């Protein structure tokens, strides 16, 4: 890499033996803190322009997600789809691929899952139906992710553009399904209802989790949250402990070197897209399989489904630095900020969109500070290697000089 060629040997690093993982963790932590300071600082300026007190505004956001009634349950249930979405993005990113199509993949997955929920009831008894529905969601996401994957591998069409186009197609696919095969047929006679699917059988839904901790049904905290954490653990295992993870990182770092090392780039990229699609398939399950307290029915795919979770997942993946564990915390943090959206117009004079701006500044700062921290770390390590080489060179052949470039 060109970085190593021009990096000055870091002065004073010497031969300190701090373990590499600790050094990188400290670097990332500092980068995160710096990004937070920048975001909160710029946010404070906007707040002051609105004539409000930054401490009050940030305090309101914090309170909404912690001490308010059901606050933590709201946050965790909102974080659930974001974890799946960000994991899907991060899996592809490990291999240097940008899956901007999580959006379309989860829309299509909601259709396949809804189909399974409505048609597989006779085949899968009891709670098996729920697992069948989740599986169909994952399969739908995989199938839809396979298209940009195959296009990338076979033709080299850049996945950013193809996945964005696939997102546009997915919106029409959902509309088509809701108008045809999944059309609401059980509507009471003479009643004009929104376009949506029939209500799923009870066995297809994911049970509530919040009541075990004394939360009400409104936040819809379900068993999908632990499932999302479990998915993060699986992704961690794949990336860190399996051959595919190693190959993905090799391809992501340098496709040329990976190929020279005997790694089949196409097959790795395809596998990453399929895993990513499977994870993306679970993003929409929170909204179609968990009881909706406001209508006290729940368990159907409506026309006005919540969109853009796939794009938010990209931001969460960046914030979590594409680390599965980091993503879980990043999703919870992101959801806490979003929880503040509803509180701001009530408790302060700030518009709810202020939170989106705050999140935007945060993500921009995080991307920059993380990269700078990573580069600094690489430079230090290079410097250390060079210093070691110098010592070795000095011991063996004192006359050799000027070899450090």
């Amino acid at each position, binding site marked *: 890499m*060109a*970085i190593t*060629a*021009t990096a000055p040997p870091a002065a004073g690093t010497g031969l300190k033996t701090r373990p590499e993982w600790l050094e990188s963790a400290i670097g990332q932590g500092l980068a995160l803190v710096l990004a937070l300071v920048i975001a909160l600082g710029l946010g404070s300026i906007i707040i002051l322009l609105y004539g409000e007190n930054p401490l009050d505004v940030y305090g309101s956001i914090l309170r909404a997600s912690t001490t308010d009634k059901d606050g933590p349950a709201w946050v965790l249930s909102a974080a659930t789809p974001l974890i799946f979405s960000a994991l899907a993005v991060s899996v592809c990113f490990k291999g240097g691929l*940008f899956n*901007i199509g999580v959006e379309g993949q989860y829309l299509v997955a909601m259709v396949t899952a809804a189909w399974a929920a409505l048609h597989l009831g006779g085949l899968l008894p009891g709670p098996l139906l729920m697992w069948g529905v989740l599986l169909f969601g994952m399969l739908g996401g995989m199938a839809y992710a396979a298209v940009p994957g195959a*296009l990338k591998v*076979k*033709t*080299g*069409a*850049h996945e*950013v*553009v*193809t996945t*964005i*186009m*696939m*997102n*546009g*197609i997915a919106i*029409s*696919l959902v*509309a*088509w399904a809701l*108008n*045809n095969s999944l059309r609401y047929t059980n509507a009471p006679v003479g009643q004009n209802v929104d376009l949506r699917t029939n209500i799923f059988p009870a066995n297809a839904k994911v049970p509530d989790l919040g009541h075990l901790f004394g939360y009400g049904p409104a936040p819809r905290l379900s068993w999908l949250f632990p499932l999302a954490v479990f998915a993060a653990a699986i992704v961690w295992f794949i990336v860190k402990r399996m051959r595919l993870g190693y190959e993905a990182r090799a391809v992501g770092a340098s496709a040329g070197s990976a190929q020279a090392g005997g790694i089949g780039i196409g097959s790795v990229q395809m596998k990453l897209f399929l895993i990513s699609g499977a994870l993306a398939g679970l993003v929409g399950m929170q909204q179609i399989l968990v009881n909706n307290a406001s209508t006290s029915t729940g368990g159907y795919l409506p026309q006005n489904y919540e969109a*853009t979770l796939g*794009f938010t997942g*990209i*931001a969460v993946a*960046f914030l979590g630095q594409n680390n599965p564990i980091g993503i879980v915390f990043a999703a919870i943090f992101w959801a806490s900020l979003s929880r503040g959206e509803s509180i701001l117009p009530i408790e302060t004079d700030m*518009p*709810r*969109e*202020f939170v*989106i*701006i705050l*999140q*935007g*500044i945060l*993500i*921009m700062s995080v*991307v*920059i500070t993380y*990269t*700078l921290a990573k*580069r600094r770390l690489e430079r230090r390590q290079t410097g250390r290697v060079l210093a070691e080489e110098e010592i070795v060179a000095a011991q063996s052949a004192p006359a050799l000089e000027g070899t450090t470039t």
Partner: protein
Amino acid sequence: MSKLGFAISIAFTYFTIIYLTGLGGLFSERSGIVNIGLEGLMIIGTVTGSFGAYYFGAKLGWGVPAGPLMGLLLGLACGAAFASIHALATVTFKIDHIVSGVVINLVAVGLARFLSTVFFGQATQSDPGQPHLHVISIPLLSSIPAFGRAFQGLSPFVLFPFLVVFPVWWILNRTRWGLRLRSAGENPEATRSLGVAVAPLRWEGVLISGAFAGLAGAFLSVEIVNNWREGQTLGLGFIALAALILSNWNPIRLMGAAFLFGFAQAIPLALRDWPVIRSIPEQFVNMTPYVVTIVVLAGFIGKVRPPAAAGKAYEGTTT
């Protein structure tokens, strides 16, 4: 037949948007910076352009030519200003170009909502009563029987691409600055060895891309829709990127590519009741622009050559 004329007039409109945005991408990529944030830059152009036309045209009462023109100018300026974030990230901090572009797109959606609450007091659309330029009919062409519909009632701004295409080609191929810009995108090391700083050229490329994308966005909201609405860019920034690839990064060939994609946009809007199209479910007809983009991208990608150093950070001294 008059339906086809109508379709072509819609295609012209989308051609203008795609061409100008693609031209923005061309300046950026020719300087060596991949700009996947064109969509986000357009979004900023739509909301600020709409505000400019509304504020100057309706609120201050500057009337018709001045109001919409101020809208277009404001969209252009704000697009360039927002692009400076991409330039800062990719040129100065050498962040991965795709990462920065994706973030630009994410941030733009939120920023547009925020600006909209500041401008119009609501997050997802602008106030009504926004003026636009008087529509024109192109002489001679518009009097062709049946087919003339294609050249009637157009915004005068659709002529703009035809005014800039040759100057842009000339600047890129015949001026010192243009040749230096392109060399920064092909071989930055060689550029520097000739004593020309790479970073300022790349900054300029990215700022120009923001200006064009912002202008295209403002054209959409000021001249076509006469209103700002959230999500109105509909992925056109990415389609412009595909058109840029199809054009082999050439401003003249970009005209053909942009018209092809513009026509794809017109099919679901104008040709829905044509014989074959009529029998296809509406939702599938709506997919046409996206499908065309994917097919073209997959079919042409191996036959074009992007600027050699596009997407790569230049690590040499920046001054």
